[in-house]
C-alpha cells in the first residue's frame, strides 16, 4: 500500500493524490493526443465513439452512481442534444455556440424530467423517466419541421470560425478536448460541496435534508448536469453519425446507456469511460471472433444479444463493482504483492433491505 504523508489540507483536495497519479494520467493523455498518429482510422473511429459515450456516461454516472437516481430515459437527453446540434448547425451556427445551446436545452429538459424525481423514487422514478423517454421520442418523430421526423435528418461536419473538422482525425481531437473538459468538471464537482450533497442524497435523504441540503434543488441540479452532459454527447454523436432518426433514441439506447455505467462501475468516474469502451468494443469484438466459431453459432442471428446479456449477467454475478472494481482489485493485488491474502475481497453475505423506505 502506498502511504501518503499529508501535511496540508490541499493534499486532500488535489485531484491527483500523488506522483503516480500525475504520471499515469499524464501518460494516458499523451497517448490519447497521439492516437490519431498511432491508430488506423477504423480504431480511431471507435475511440471517438468511446469518448462520446464516455461523456454521456459521466452524466449518467453523476445521476445514477452518485445521486442514486436511476434514469431509464437518458436517450431522450442524448437525442435532444443531437437534434439541437443538427438544427442549429443547420442554421449556420458555429459549433461551440450550437453545442452550448444544445447542452442548455438538454439541461432544461432535464429539469423538467427531474420534477417527478422530487416526489418519487426507485422504480417509480425509473418508470417516470422511461415514460418521458417515450414521449420525447414521439416528439422527435412528430416535430418534422425541426427534426425531419421519421425521414431523418442529416448533419454536417463540425465548423467553427473558419475551421472545419471534417476528417476523422480532427473530429476525434474535438471529442477528446470535450471529454477531458467534461471529466474535469465532474471531478471538480465531486470534490466540492455540490458533489457531496449528491452523495448525501443517495445515502439518506432525511439526514441530507436535516444537514440543510435542499433536496429538490440538488436533485434537479443533478438531472440538469447529467442531461447537459448527455446533450453534449448527443451533439458530438450527431456529427459523428451524420444522420439522425427518432429510433436512434429509443428505450434500447436508454438501457444501453444504463448498462454502460453499471458495467463500468457505479460510483466512479473511471467507470463511465470503461463502460463506454465496453459498450462500443464488445460488438466489435464479437464480430471479430464470430468468423472463427462454428457456422451454427458464429453466423446465427441473436449471437450478439446472448453474449451481451451473458456478459452483463456475469458482471453482476462476479463483479458487481464493474470494470473499475475489478481494476481496483488487480491494482491492490499488485501493490500488496507478496502480502496479498486470499479472501480479502471475498464477498460477504449481504442482506437486502427494503428500499421503499429511504
Amino acid at each position, binding site marked *: 500500500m502506498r502511504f501518503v504523508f499529508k501535511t496540508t489540507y490541499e493534499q486532500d483536495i488535489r485531484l491527483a493524490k500523488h506522483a503516480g497519479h500525475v504520471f499515469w494520467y499524464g501518460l494516458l493523455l499523451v497517448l490519447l493526443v497521439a492516437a490519431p498518429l498511432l491508430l488506423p482510422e*477504423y480504431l480511431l473511429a471507435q475511440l471517438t465513439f468511446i469518448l462520446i459515450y464516455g461523456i454521456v456516461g459521466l452524466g449518467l454516472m453523476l445521476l445514477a452512481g452518485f445521486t442514486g437516481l436511476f434514469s431509464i430515459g437518458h436517450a431522450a437527453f442524448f437525442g435532444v442534444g443531437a437534434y439541437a446540434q443538427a438544427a442549429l448547425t443547420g442554421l449556420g451556427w458555429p459549433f461551440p455556440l450550437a453545442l452550448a445551446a444544445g447542452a442548455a436545452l438538454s439541461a432544461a429538459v432535464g429539469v423538467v424530467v427531474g420534477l417527478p424525481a422530487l416526489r418519487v423514487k426507485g422504480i417509480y422514478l425509473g418508470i417516470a423517466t422511461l415514460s418521458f423517454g417515450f414521449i420525447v421520442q414521439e416528439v422527435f418523430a412528430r416535430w418534422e419541421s425541426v427534426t425531419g421526423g*421519421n425521414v431523418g435528418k442529416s448533419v454536417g461536419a463540425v465548423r467553427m470560425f473558419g475551421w472545419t473538422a471534417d476528417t476523422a482525425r480532427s473530429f476525434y481531437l474535438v471529442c477528446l478536448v470535450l471529454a477531458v473538459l467534461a471529466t474535469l468538471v465532474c471531478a471538480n464537482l465531486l470534490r466540492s460541496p455540490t458533489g457531496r450533497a449528491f452523495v448525501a442524497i443517495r445515502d439518506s435523504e432525511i439526514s441530507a435534508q436535516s444537514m440543510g441540503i435542499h433536496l429538490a434543488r440538488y436533485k434537479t441540479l443533478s438531472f440538469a448536469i447529467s442531461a447537459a452532459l448527455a446533450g453534449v454527447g448527443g451533439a458530438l454523436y450527431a456529427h459523428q*453519425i451524420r*444522420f439522425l432518426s427518432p429510433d436512434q433514441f429509443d428505450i*434500447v439506447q436508454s438501457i444501453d446507456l444504463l448498462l454502460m455505467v453499471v458495467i463500468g462501475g457505479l460510483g466512479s468516474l473511471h467507470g463511465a469511460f470503461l463502460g463506454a469502451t465496453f459498450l462500443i468494443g464488445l460488438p466489435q469484438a464479437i*464480430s471479430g471472433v464470430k468468423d472463427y466459431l462454428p457456422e451454427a453459432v458464429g*453466423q446465427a442471428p441473436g449471437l450478439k*444479444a446472448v453474449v451481451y446479456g451473458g456478459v452483463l449477467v456475469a458482471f453482476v454475478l462476479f463483479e458487481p463493482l464493474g470494470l473499475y472494481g475489478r481494476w481496483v482489485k488487480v491494482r491492490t493485488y499488485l501493490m500488496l504483492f507478496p502480502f496479498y491474502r486470499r479472501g480479502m475481497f471475498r464477498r460477504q453475505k449481504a442482506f437486502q433491505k427494503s428500499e421503499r423506505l429511504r
Partner: protein
Amino acid sequence: QQQGVSKSEILIGTIQDLSGPIAAFGKQARMGMQLRVDEINEQGGIQGRRLKLAVEDSAYDPKKAVLAAQKLVNQDKVFLIAGHIGTAQNMAAMPVQFEKNIINFMPITAAREMYEPLHRLKYSFAATYYDQIRTALPKLVKEKNAKKVCTLYQDDDFGLEVQRGAEAGLKAVGMDVGEKTTYKRGATDFSSQVAKLKASGCEVVVLGTIIRETIGAIAEARKTGYNPTFLGSSAAYTDLIHKLGGKAVDGLYATMTVQHPYLDEASQPIRFWATKYKTKFNEDPTVFSVYGYSIVDQFARVAQKAGPNLTTDSFIKAMDGMTFEPDIFGSPISTYTATKHLGNELSRLSQIQDGRWKVVSDYVRP
C-alpha cells in the same frame, strides 16, 4: 490500388440485422447472398477471382451500422457494400462509405433516398414503396370503384413512404386520403384505428404495415364486421402473412417486385432454385433470400463486364449502361444510366387466394 480486389479475390461487404427486430429478414438475405456467392465460386469466380462476403450485424441500429460500415470499409477493406438492410442504417453508413469511394450497391430498402439525390456511388434496384403504391392504388381504386380510400401505416420512415405514395396516387385520379391512422412498431392492438377506419366508411385501406401488424389490423377489421379491400406494399408480401393470418387475410392485395419462391411453385426454375436453397440451409426461402441472391448475381454480372481491371471507376462505368433482363423470379427489365440509378419503378399486384399469394396483374405502368 483498388481496395477489396486482389489477384485472387473480390471482397464485398454486407450489413444485415442479425439480432434486432428484423433478424428474420436479415438472416434470409444473408443466406441468399451466400448461395449466389458459392455458386459463382463453384463456376470459377469472376474474371478468375473468387468472391468473398463479409457480413456485419447492425441489429437494426444506425449507430451499430456506422461502426459496421467503418469496420468493413476501413478495416476489412471491402470493394463495395451490397444489400445493406434498413433505411436509417443505410443513411448513417453511406457517408462513411462515400468518404472512401465505396459504392452502396442495391440496399434492401425501398426508400427514395437510396438513389435520390443522384450520387455516383448509389445504386438501387427495387421500385420504392412510394412508387409501388402510387402506381398500384389508382388501378385498384378503379377496379373496385371505390369512393373513399384510407391509410393505416407504421409510424416511421417506411410507413410514411407508403402514406405519401397513396396520397400521390390518389391525387393523380383526383381523390384525397379519407382517414389517416398510424400505429407504433410492435403494436398489438388496432381496435381504435380500425374503429376510426370503419367509422369513416372507407372501401379501400392502404396498409403501410409489415407482418404482424398487417394480420392484426385485418383480423380486427374482420371481427368487427368491416370488410374493405386491403392493399399492402411489398413489405407485406411474405408468406408469413397467410401462414399466420389464416382465413382472415384472404383477399389481401400487395404490391411486389419479385415473386415468393414457394417450394411447390408451378414455375420449374423457381422450384429448382428453392429446393437448392432449402437443401443448403435447411430453411424455406423467402423473398428476402431472393433479394440477396439477385443482388450478388447482378453484382457479378457488372463485375464481369467491368473486366479484369476491377476498380470503383470501372465498375461504375460498367454499371451505367447496364441492362438486366427479367430473371427466373419474374422481375421486370431494369436499366441503369449515368443519370438513372434506380433499376426500375415497376411492381405487380398479388393477392392472397386460398391461403397463398397469386400474382394478379402484370407490371403496372404508371
